[in-house]
Protein backbone atom coordinates (compact mmCIF):
# COMPACT_ATOMS: atom_id res chain seq x y z
CA UNK A 1 0.00 0.00 0.00
CA UNK A 2 1.31 3.43 -0.86
CA UNK A 3 1.32 5.86 2.01
CA UNK A 4 1.19 9.59 1.50
CA UNK A 5 2.10 12.49 3.66
CA UNK A 6 -0.74 13.77 5.78
CA UNK A 7 0.96 17.15 5.95
CA UNK A 8 -0.81 20.11 4.43
CA UNK A 9 0.29 21.76 1.24
CA UNK A 10 1.32 25.28 2.21
CA UNK A 11 -0.95 27.99 0.86
CA UNK A 12 0.26 30.85 -1.31
CA UNK A 13 0.38 33.23 1.65
CA UNK A 14 2.74 30.95 3.53
CA UNK A 15 4.90 30.41 0.46
CA UNK A 16 5.14 34.17 0.04
CA UNK A 17 6.16 34.59 3.68
CA UNK A 18 8.75 31.87 3.22
CA UNK A 19 10.13 33.40 0.03
CA UNK A 20 10.40 36.77 1.82
CA UNK A 21 12.91 35.19 4.19
CA UNK A 22 15.41 35.19 1.33
CA UNK A 23 15.25 38.99 1.31
CA UNK A 24 15.80 39.32 5.07
CA UNK A 25 16.84 35.94 6.35
CA UNK A 26 15.75 35.04 9.87
CA UNK A 27 15.49 31.32 9.29
CA UNK A 28 18.06 30.35 11.89
CA UNK A 29 19.12 31.87 15.18
CA UNK A 30 22.15 33.53 13.68
CA UNK A 31 19.47 36.03 12.58
CA UNK A 32 21.75 37.47 9.90
CA UNK A 33 18.91 39.45 8.27
CA UNK A 34 20.84 39.47 4.99
CA UNK A 35 19.27 39.70 1.55
CA UNK A 36 20.20 36.33 0.08
CA UNK A 37 18.15 37.09 -3.02
CA UNK A 38 20.49 39.95 -3.88
CA UNK A 39 23.64 37.96 -3.24
CA UNK A 40 24.38 38.83 0.38
CA UNK A 41 25.70 36.00 2.49
CA UNK A 42 25.04 35.25 6.13
CA UNK A 43 26.65 32.68 8.40
CA UNK A 44 25.58 29.74 6.24
CA UNK A 45 26.74 31.44 3.01
CA UNK A 46 23.70 30.04 1.21
CA UNK A 47 21.92 31.77 -1.63
CA UNK A 48 18.41 31.02 -2.81
CA UNK A 49 19.10 27.75 -4.58
CA UNK A 50 18.87 24.45 -2.79
CA UNK A 51 21.54 22.03 -3.96
CA UNK A 52 21.50 18.28 -3.55
CA UNK A 53 24.79 16.51 -2.93
CA UNK A 54 23.42 13.03 -2.32
CA UNK A 55 20.20 11.12 -2.15
CA UNK A 56 19.70 7.53 -1.22
CA UNK A 57 17.48 5.10 0.62
CA UNK A 58 18.62 4.55 4.19
CA UNK A 59 17.78 1.68 6.53
CA UNK A 60 20.05 2.61 9.43
CA UNK A 61 17.65 4.85 11.30
CA UNK A 62 14.71 4.57 13.65
CA UNK A 63 12.52 1.62 12.52
CA UNK A 64 9.37 3.71 12.29
CA UNK A 65 10.79 5.93 9.52
CA UNK A 66 12.84 3.46 7.46
CA UNK A 67 13.30 2.79 4.65
CA UNK A 68 13.72 6.52 4.33
CA UNK A 69 14.59 8.39 1.15
CA UNK A 70 17.19 10.91 2.28
CA UNK A 71 17.73 14.14 0.38
CA UNK A 72 21.05 15.65 1.44
CA UNK A 73 21.17 19.39 0.80
CA UNK A 74 24.38 21.35 1.10
CA UNK A 75 24.89 24.31 3.42
CA UNK A 76 24.54 24.53 7.18
CA UNK A 77 24.13 27.09 9.94
CA UNK A 78 26.36 25.15 12.34
CA UNK A 79 30.03 24.21 12.10
CA UNK A 80 30.21 20.98 14.06
CA UNK A 81 33.80 19.79 14.21
CA UNK A 82 32.68 16.15 14.06
CA UNK A 83 30.28 16.51 11.12
CA UNK A 84 30.03 13.33 9.11
CA UNK A 85 29.14 15.19 5.92
CA UNK A 86 32.09 17.59 6.22
CA UNK A 87 32.64 19.97 3.35
CA UNK A 88 29.44 18.90 1.61
CA UNK A 89 27.48 20.08 4.60
CA UNK A 90 29.22 23.40 5.04
CA UNK A 91 29.63 24.56 1.46
CA UNK A 92 26.25 25.47 -0.07
CA UNK A 93 27.84 25.45 -3.53
CA UNK A 94 28.28 21.67 -3.36
CA UNK A 95 25.96 19.37 -5.26
CA UNK A 96 23.66 20.35 -8.07
CA UNK A 97 20.62 22.55 -8.06
CA UNK A 98 17.56 20.58 -7.10
CA UNK A 99 14.92 21.71 -9.53
CA UNK A 100 11.35 20.51 -9.72
CA UNK A 101 11.95 17.95 -12.47
CA UNK A 102 14.84 16.35 -10.62
CA UNK A 103 12.98 16.33 -7.34
CA UNK A 104 9.92 14.71 -8.88
CA UNK A 105 12.07 12.10 -10.62
CA UNK A 106 13.90 11.31 -7.40
CA UNK A 107 10.64 11.00 -5.47
CA UNK A 108 9.31 8.61 -8.10
CA UNK A 109 12.54 6.59 -7.90
CA UNK A 110 12.17 6.26 -4.15
CA UNK A 111 8.51 5.39 -4.32
CA UNK A 112 9.21 2.59 -6.80
CA UNK A 113 11.56 1.13 -4.18
CA UNK A 114 9.01 1.20 -1.42
CA UNK A 115 10.29 4.01 0.77
CA UNK A 116 8.27 4.72 3.89
CA UNK A 117 9.32 8.34 4.29
CA UNK A 118 10.97 11.21 2.45
CA UNK A 119 13.57 12.88 4.62
CA UNK A 120 15.28 16.26 4.30
CA UNK A 121 18.76 16.25 5.79
CA UNK A 122 21.87 18.32 5.32
CA UNK A 123 23.74 20.22 6.03
CA UNK A 124 20.69 21.86 7.47
CA UNK A 125 17.47 21.94 5.46
CA UNK A 126 16.03 24.84 7.48
CA UNK A 127 18.28 27.35 5.72
CA UNK A 128 16.62 26.24 2.45
CA UNK A 129 13.12 26.07 3.82
CA UNK A 130 11.51 28.43 1.25
CA UNK A 131 12.86 26.51 -1.74
CA UNK A 132 12.02 23.16 -0.20
CA UNK A 133 8.47 24.21 0.59
CA UNK A 134 8.02 25.23 -3.02
CA UNK A 135 9.38 21.92 -4.28
CA UNK A 136 7.02 19.99 -2.03
CA UNK A 137 4.06 22.19 -2.92
CA UNK A 138 4.47 21.37 -6.59
CA UNK A 139 4.90 17.66 -5.94
CA UNK A 140 1.69 16.21 -4.52
CA UNK A 141 1.31 12.76 -2.97
CA UNK A 142 4.70 12.72 -1.32
CA UNK A 143 5.53 10.00 1.19
CA UNK A 144 5.34 11.19 4.80
CA UNK A 145 7.89 13.98 5.17
CA UNK A 146 10.65 13.86 7.80
CA UNK A 147 12.51 17.07 8.68
CA UNK A 148 15.86 16.21 10.23
CA UNK A 149 17.32 19.32 11.77
CA UNK A 150 19.82 20.74 14.22
CA UNK A 151 16.89 22.67 15.70
CA UNK A 152 18.77 25.96 15.60
CA UNK A 153 15.94 27.48 13.58
CA UNK A 154 13.86 30.47 14.61
CA UNK A 155 10.22 30.36 15.67
CA UNK A 156 9.52 32.03 12.33
CA UNK A 157 11.02 29.04 10.53
CA UNK A 158 9.06 26.57 12.62
CA UNK A 159 5.92 28.56 11.94
CA UNK A 160 6.52 28.21 8.21
CA UNK A 161 7.10 24.48 8.60
CA UNK A 162 4.07 23.79 10.74
CA UNK A 163 1.70 21.48 8.97
CA UNK A 164 4.13 20.76 6.16
CA UNK A 165 6.11 17.96 7.75
CA UNK A 166 4.92 14.74 9.36
CA UNK A 167 7.90 13.99 11.58
CA UNK A 168 10.60 16.19 13.07
CA UNK A 169 13.89 14.47 13.81
CA UNK A 170 15.87 16.72 16.13
CA UNK A 171 19.59 16.37 16.57
CA UNK A 172 19.99 17.23 20.24
CA UNK A 173 23.77 17.43 20.04
CA UNK A 174 24.93 19.10 23.24
CA UNK A 175 23.83 19.21 26.84
CA UNK A 176 25.27 22.63 27.66
CA UNK A 177 26.15 25.91 26.01
CA UNK A 178 29.92 25.64 26.39
CA UNK A 179 30.27 22.44 24.36
CA UNK A 180 27.99 23.87 21.68
CA UNK A 181 30.14 26.96 21.44
CA UNK A 182 33.41 25.07 21.38
CA UNK A 183 32.40 22.28 18.98
CA UNK A 184 29.76 23.92 16.76
CA UNK A 185 30.41 27.64 17.08
CA UNK A 186 26.98 28.65 18.32
CA UNK A 187 25.78 30.35 21.49
CA UNK A 188 22.70 30.12 23.69
CA UNK A 189 22.28 26.52 22.58
CA UNK A 190 20.19 25.03 25.33
CA UNK A 191 17.54 27.72 25.42
CA UNK A 192 17.17 27.81 21.62
CA UNK A 193 17.07 24.08 21.05
CA UNK A 194 14.96 23.51 24.14
CA UNK A 195 12.40 26.03 22.95
CA UNK A 196 12.30 24.46 19.49
CA UNK A 197 11.93 20.93 20.80
CA UNK A 198 8.86 22.00 22.70
CA UNK A 199 7.49 23.85 19.68
CA UNK A 200 7.98 20.80 17.48
CA UNK A 201 6.44 18.42 20.00
CA UNK A 202 3.26 20.48 19.91
CA UNK A 203 3.06 20.53 16.13
CA UNK A 204 4.10 17.15 14.72
CA UNK A 205 5.49 13.77 15.56
CA UNK A 206 8.93 14.28 17.12
CA UNK A 207 11.97 12.06 17.43
CA UNK A 208 14.78 13.47 19.56
CA UNK A 209 18.07 11.98 18.51
CA UNK A 210 21.39 12.19 20.33
CA UNK A 211 24.75 11.12 18.93
CA UNK A 212 26.95 10.01 21.79
CA UNK A 213 30.30 11.79 21.70
CA UNK A 214 33.39 10.40 23.41
CA UNK A 215 34.18 12.29 26.58
CA UNK A 216 30.79 14.02 26.68
CA UNK A 217 28.85 11.73 28.99
CA UNK A 218 28.64 14.02 32.00
CA UNK A 219 28.58 17.36 30.19
CA UNK A 220 26.22 16.43 27.34
CA UNK A 221 24.54 13.03 27.49
CA UNK A 222 23.46 13.05 31.12
CA UNK A 223 22.17 16.66 30.97
CA UNK A 224 20.21 15.81 27.83
CA UNK A 225 18.60 12.83 29.54
CA UNK A 226 17.75 15.05 32.49
CA UNK A 227 16.37 17.76 30.20
CA UNK A 228 14.20 15.23 28.39
CA UNK A 229 12.97 13.81 31.67
CA UNK A 230 11.98 17.26 32.91
CA UNK A 231 10.53 18.69 29.72
CA UNK A 232 9.54 16.02 27.21
CA UNK A 233 9.41 12.71 29.07
CA UNK A 234 7.02 11.12 26.59
CA UNK A 235 8.84 12.19 23.43
CA UNK A 236 10.52 9.54 21.33
CA UNK A 237 14.20 9.42 22.19
CA UNK A 238 16.87 7.82 20.04
CA UNK A 239 20.49 7.19 20.91
CA UNK A 240 23.13 6.94 18.20
CA UNK A 241 26.39 5.27 19.14
CA UNK A 242 28.13 5.11 15.76
CA UNK A 243 30.44 8.06 16.29
CA UNK A 244 33.67 8.00 14.29
CA UNK A 245 36.22 10.83 14.19
CA UNK A 246 35.62 12.78 10.98
CA UNK A 247 36.00 16.22 9.45
CA UNK A 248 37.84 18.37 12.03
CA UNK A 249 37.26 16.17 15.05
CA UNK A 250 41.00 15.70 15.48
CA UNK A 251 41.24 19.33 16.59
CA UNK A 252 39.59 18.29 19.83
CA UNK A 253 41.46 15.76 21.93
CA UNK A 254 38.42 13.92 23.26
CA UNK A 255 36.96 13.45 19.77
CA UNK A 256 39.94 11.72 18.20
CA UNK A 257 38.82 8.17 18.99
CA UNK A 258 35.61 6.17 18.51
CA UNK A 259 33.38 5.60 21.50
CA UNK A 260 34.53 2.94 23.95
CA UNK A 261 32.75 -0.41 23.48
CA UNK A 262 29.62 -0.75 25.56
CA UNK A 263 28.89 2.93 25.87
CA UNK A 264 25.76 2.65 23.73
CA UNK A 265 24.29 -0.04 25.98
CA UNK A 266 25.12 1.98 29.08
CA UNK A 267 23.48 5.05 27.57
CA UNK A 268 20.33 3.14 26.73
CA UNK A 269 20.16 1.75 30.26
CA UNK A 270 20.43 5.26 31.69
CA UNK A 271 17.72 6.58 29.38
CA UNK A 272 15.40 3.72 30.28
CA UNK A 273 16.11 4.17 33.97
CA UNK A 274 15.18 7.84 33.60
CA UNK A 275 11.83 6.78 32.17
CA UNK A 276 12.42 8.15 28.68
CA UNK A 277 10.56 6.80 25.69
CA UNK A 278 13.57 5.16 24.07
CA UNK A 279 12.83 3.95 20.56
CA UNK A 280 16.32 3.19 19.21
Amino acid at each position, binding site marked *: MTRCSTALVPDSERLARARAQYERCLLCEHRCAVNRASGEHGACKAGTEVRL*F*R*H*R*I*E*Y*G*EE*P*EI*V*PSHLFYVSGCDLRCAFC*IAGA*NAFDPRRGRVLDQA*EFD*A*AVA*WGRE*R*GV*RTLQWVGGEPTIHLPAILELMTCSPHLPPVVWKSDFFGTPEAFSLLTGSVDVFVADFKFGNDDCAKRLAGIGDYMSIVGRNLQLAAERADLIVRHLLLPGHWECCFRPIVNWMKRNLPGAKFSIR*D*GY*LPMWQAARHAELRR*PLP*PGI*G*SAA*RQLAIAAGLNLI*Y
Partner: protein
Amino acid sequence: MDFDDESRLTEITLAADGRVFVFGLSREVLDILRDLCPPEHPLRAILEDQRISGTPMS
Protein backbone atom coordinates in the same frame (compact mmCIF):
# COMPACT_ATOMS: atom_id res chain seq x y z
CA MET B 1 17.74 9.73 -13.29
CA ASP B 2 21.47 10.03 -12.84
CA PHE B 3 23.15 9.36 -9.54
CA ASP B 4 26.47 10.66 -8.43
CA ASP B 5 29.02 8.35 -6.89
CA GLU B 6 28.27 9.35 -3.33
CA SER B 7 24.65 8.35 -3.66
CA ARG B 8 25.76 4.84 -4.50
CA LEU B 9 28.35 4.46 -1.75
CA THR B 10 28.06 2.64 1.53
CA GLU B 11 30.95 3.28 3.87
CA ILE B 12 31.78 0.45 6.24
CA THR B 13 34.37 0.75 8.98
CA LEU B 14 35.43 -2.35 10.86
CA ALA B 15 36.95 -1.45 14.21
CA ALA B 16 39.72 -3.57 15.69
CA ASP B 17 37.43 -4.58 18.53
CA GLY B 18 34.96 -6.06 16.06
CA ARG B 19 32.42 -3.29 15.90
CA VAL B 20 31.01 -2.48 12.49
CA PHE B 21 30.17 1.13 11.56
CA VAL B 22 27.97 1.56 8.51
CA PHE B 23 27.13 4.85 6.85
CA GLY B 24 24.60 4.50 4.08
CA LEU B 25 22.77 1.34 5.06
CA SER B 26 21.10 0.11 1.89
CA ARG B 27 18.72 -2.83 1.65
CA GLU B 28 21.45 -4.96 0.15
CA VAL B 29 23.90 -4.17 2.94
CA LEU B 30 21.15 -4.77 5.46
CA ASP B 31 20.69 -8.26 4.02
CA ILE B 32 24.41 -8.94 4.40
CA LEU B 33 24.32 -7.78 8.00
CA ARG B 34 21.34 -10.00 8.67
CA ASP B 35 23.48 -12.99 7.77
CA LEU B 36 26.07 -11.82 10.28
CA CYS B 37 23.48 -12.00 13.09
CA PRO B 38 24.41 -8.68 14.68
CA PRO B 39 24.23 -8.59 18.47
CA GLU B 40 23.54 -4.88 18.65
CA HIS B 41 20.04 -3.96 19.71
CA PRO B 42 19.28 -1.10 17.25
CA LEU B 43 20.23 -3.08 14.18
CA ARG B 44 18.22 -6.07 15.38
CA ALA B 45 15.21 -3.78 15.69
CA ILE B 46 15.60 -2.59 12.11
CA LEU B 47 15.99 -6.14 10.81
CA GLU B 48 12.89 -7.26 12.69
CA ASP B 49 10.88 -4.28 11.45
CA GLN B 50 11.87 -4.87 7.84
CA ARG B 51 11.12 -8.58 8.09
CA ILE B 52 7.59 -7.73 9.23
CA SER B 53 6.90 -4.94 6.78
CA GLY B 54 8.35 -6.85 3.85
CA THR B 55 9.76 -3.81 2.14
CA PRO B 56 10.58 -4.69 -1.47
CA MET B 57 14.16 -5.07 -2.51
CA SER B 58 15.65 -2.14 -4.38
